[in-house]
């Protein structure tokens, strides 16, 4: 059990990095996912096809493959993902004093992958709005834009919150993969490092790492459960 105390700073550092990456990836995925969702429900067939294609590709591929793609494909496209080298973020990417593209590649992979699910969560929100609401709006003479703005979106947003939350929880869990992918210092790589390389006893390390993830996932999940129950009652 000593390892939990001796190496507390290592656990805390892993937790902190995982949290930072998750926040960044969540922001990126929400933005990209919203764009893809707009494409997916747009009335223009080629755009819809792009949106649908995007979702089908990224939803059906393992994140692992997406990560490898990012790592090999982006350099081949001539990019080291330098566009992510924003001053504030650099501190996270060059955590070990070394600026390596893997951090950015991993982040991009996580964003690309999660965005497909964000899109679906948003879309499920739109689908959850009863057709009668839009029909009533239309029969009042509201135009498409007004219908969207005053009737559909305010309601679909509410219906999307819970599924979006589930997507983010899943993303937090998926972020564990980056530690096995080359990003050094997050929670999962910490687990590997402490047990394999530094030879600490397995059980306490496992407990420490588990707590790290559960701190992020369980309260969020409980919050969603409550939201969901509240919505179910309100309906």
């Amino acid at each position: 059990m000593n390892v939990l105390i001796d190496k507390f700073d290592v656990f805390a550092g892993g937790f902190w990095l995982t949290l930072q990456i998750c926040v960044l990836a969540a922001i990126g995925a929400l933005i990209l996912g919203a764009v893809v969702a707009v494409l997916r429900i747009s009335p223009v067939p080629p755009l819809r096809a792009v949106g649908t294609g995007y979702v089908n590709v990224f939803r059906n591929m393992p994140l692992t493959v997406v990560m490898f793609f990012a790592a090999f494909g982006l350099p081949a496209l001539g990019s080291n993902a330098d566009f992510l080298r924003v001053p504030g973020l650099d501190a996270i990417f060059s955590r070990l004093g070394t600026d390596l593209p893997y951090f950015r590649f991993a982040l991009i992979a996580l964003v690309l992958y999660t965005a497909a699910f964000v899109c679906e969560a948003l879309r499920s929100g739109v689908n959850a709005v009863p057709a009668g609401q839009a029909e009533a709006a239309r029969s009042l003479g509201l135009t498409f834009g007004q219908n969207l703005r005053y009737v559909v979106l305010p309601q679909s947003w509410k219906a999307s919150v819970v599924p979006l939350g589930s997507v983010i929880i899943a993303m937090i869990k998926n972020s564990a993969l980056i530690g096995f992918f080359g990003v050094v210092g997050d929670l999962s790589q910490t687990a590997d490092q402490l047990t394999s390389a530094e030879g600490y006893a397995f059980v306490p390390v496992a407990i420490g790492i588990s707590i790290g993830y559960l701190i992020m996932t369980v309260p969020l999940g409980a919050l969603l459960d409550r939201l969901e129950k509240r919505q179910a009652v309100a309906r």
Partner: protein
Amino acid sequence: MATGEPLIVLDGVNKWFGPLHVLDDVSLSVGKGEVVVVIGPSGSGKSTLCRTINRLEPITSGTITFDGQPLPAEGKALAKLRSEVGMVFQSFNLFAHKTILENVTLGPVKVRKEKASVARERGLALLDRVGIANQADKFPAQLSGGQQQRAAIARALAMQPKAMLFDEPTSALDPEMVGEVLDVMTSLAGEGMTMVVVTHEMGFARHAANRVIFMADGQLVEDAPPSQFFANPRSERARDFLSKILTH
């Protein structure tokens, strides 16, 4: 209840849902100020007929004119037409995230560009008229079915429509609330509103309608004044239907 010049005219209207012939060569003319009740067995196309009139459902062939103009296909013109035809649904369809008053004023403010204060005042008057002025600031889910449906009628009336369409407005209601909605509809009919009403309430048909239309299998089978229709339906199908509805 003077029946003036025709306001809604359907001519040879056909509608297919895939292989399903839902409206089969329907022709119908509804005069200004006329109240037409549509009855018929489930699936006979009553709702579809109702919905084609404000083009919530486009038709496959035939023509529909409203106030002398063929129904526009899209865009602003269609929105304008719809704002002139009030519609009341079986399941109310009040906007769940808005208060009753907001439901009623949304159309006038956003479509008609009325000033909020004006719309609000008229909205309150309408809510008063349908008997739920005291519920103005509640959300739909807090109201009983009968109150919700009356709010929906007020919402439609707020657009000052030339005609009103009702699709089974009382069949989702508890029996003791049916009356309050029918009362509002009856008074509306009395004031000369042009109305097309799909309903199973034979009492309303008898007392408030100028004409009763009986539909079966997408066809308009009978079209007669209520007294004549109920006393002596011409077709076998109508007789059969009436016997099922009226015996118990």
